[in-house]
């Protein structure tokens, strides 16, 4: 071989580039192919249960504002979500983490609000959470697909992959996302009994938001907030499949007037408010 040192270095450099690009190229051209081809996946794939029938589902939430604002000082949905998912009470509003919370018509529908909103509604609060948009800007901007849209409509969070760039927070037009500015476990020091051992917490440096409780949906249950409201018999939160014409959500949307937050932005939210 007559290769000089220079030739060798050139060859090594180009090979390294190809090697580095190969993984990315695989991922781009055949998403999931690399994982599927691993031994572990092959072995396990044979022992797998069939995928859930969710392709035709589009989950949606309907919030009956008129019923909810009659429930003075009720925070059941918020408390249920916070305790189920180990969401810390941060204290400092700048760093607060909230998946579902209650807010006023003025804040949630600023373009609709006027001086002449009816007295029953003015200043009263009702729940709000991630809209699980059909056309989510947060999913569009995420550089790692840590937030992604499931076939059943849910905009999901993969906490393992999130790099904490907070681009999704800038993109969300609804302020639905929270970031872990510090280690959330710190807020449970001395209160470890409050942790739900069936769910994880998150760690510092990742974004989180309402995910419509997929672990409950997988077991045929409804999201924690909906269950809590039903337990109270307030029935302000209705959850169901928009693609099923006989679902509760479809039935009530046929009967009552509903609005969505900032529809002009083209996000197509899946959360409807009955006003």
């Amino acid at each position: 071989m007559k290769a000089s040192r220079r030739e060798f270095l050139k060859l090594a450099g180009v090979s390294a580039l190809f090697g580095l690009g190969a993984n990315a190229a695989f991922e781009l051209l055949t998403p999931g192919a690399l994982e599927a081809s691993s031994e572990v996946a092959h072995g396990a794939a044979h022992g797998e249960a069939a995928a859930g029938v969710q392709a035709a589902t589009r989950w949606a939430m309907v919030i009956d504002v008129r019923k909810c604002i009659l429930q003075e000082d009720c925070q059941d949905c918020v408390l249920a979500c916070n305790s189920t998912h180990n969401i810390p009470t941060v204290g400092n509003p700048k760093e607060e983490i909230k998946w579902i919370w209650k807010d006023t018509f003025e804040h949630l529908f600023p373009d609709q609000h006027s001086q002449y909103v009816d007295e029953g509604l003015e200043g009263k609060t009702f729940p709000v959470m991630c809209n699980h948009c059909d056309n989510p800007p947060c999913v569009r901007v995420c550089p790692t697909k840590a937030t992604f849209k499931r076939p059943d409509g849910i905009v999901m969070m993969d906490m393992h992959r999130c790099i904490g760039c907070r681009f999704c927070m800038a993109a969300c037009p609804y302020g639905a996302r929270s970031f872990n500015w510090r280690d959330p476990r710190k807020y449970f020091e001395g209160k470890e009994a409050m942790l739900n051992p069936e769910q994880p917490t998150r760690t510092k440096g990742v974004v989180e938001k309402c995910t419509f409780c997929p672990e409950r949906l997988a077991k045929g249950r409804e999201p924690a907030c909906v269950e809590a409201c039903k337990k109270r018999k307030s029935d302000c939160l209705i959850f169901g499949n928009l693609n099923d014409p006989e679902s509760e959500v479809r039935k009530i949307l046929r009967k009552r007037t509903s609005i969505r937050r900032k529809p002009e932005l083209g996000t197509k939210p899946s959360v409807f408010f009955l006003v």
Partner: protein
Amino acid sequence: MYDLNKILVGLAIFLLFFTFPILYGMGSAVPVPKPKLDTPEIQKLTDKKCVEDTHFMRTSHMQFLNYWRDRAVREDHRTYESKLNGKKYDISLQNTCMKCHSNKKDFCDSCHTYASVKPYCWDCHIEPKAAKESM
């Protein structure tokens, strides 16, 4: 040789830094870890089998957990059928794995500490009984 003294001193300092981990740990060799399997849940099992066989678990549990992670979180398939015994398991680190292996210190940590591995799963996933113990 120019600056021989400086070079020798520098070499000595370098060797000291380089071998420090060995010198520091001298005389404190730790015995090979024996992860304990005598948790209440495991004792209740009639057929004492894990989700897959021991050899596979020992060699590939991290890849397996990553596979479970992607199956549950990204693909929403939350049931796993074991090749070992055909049983169906919920895909969950906290609710399946740690249900049986509830003794993290005597099981997970014994090997991890020995191998100086610090998996950050526990930053988020709650250790069993960690909810009741102080951190």
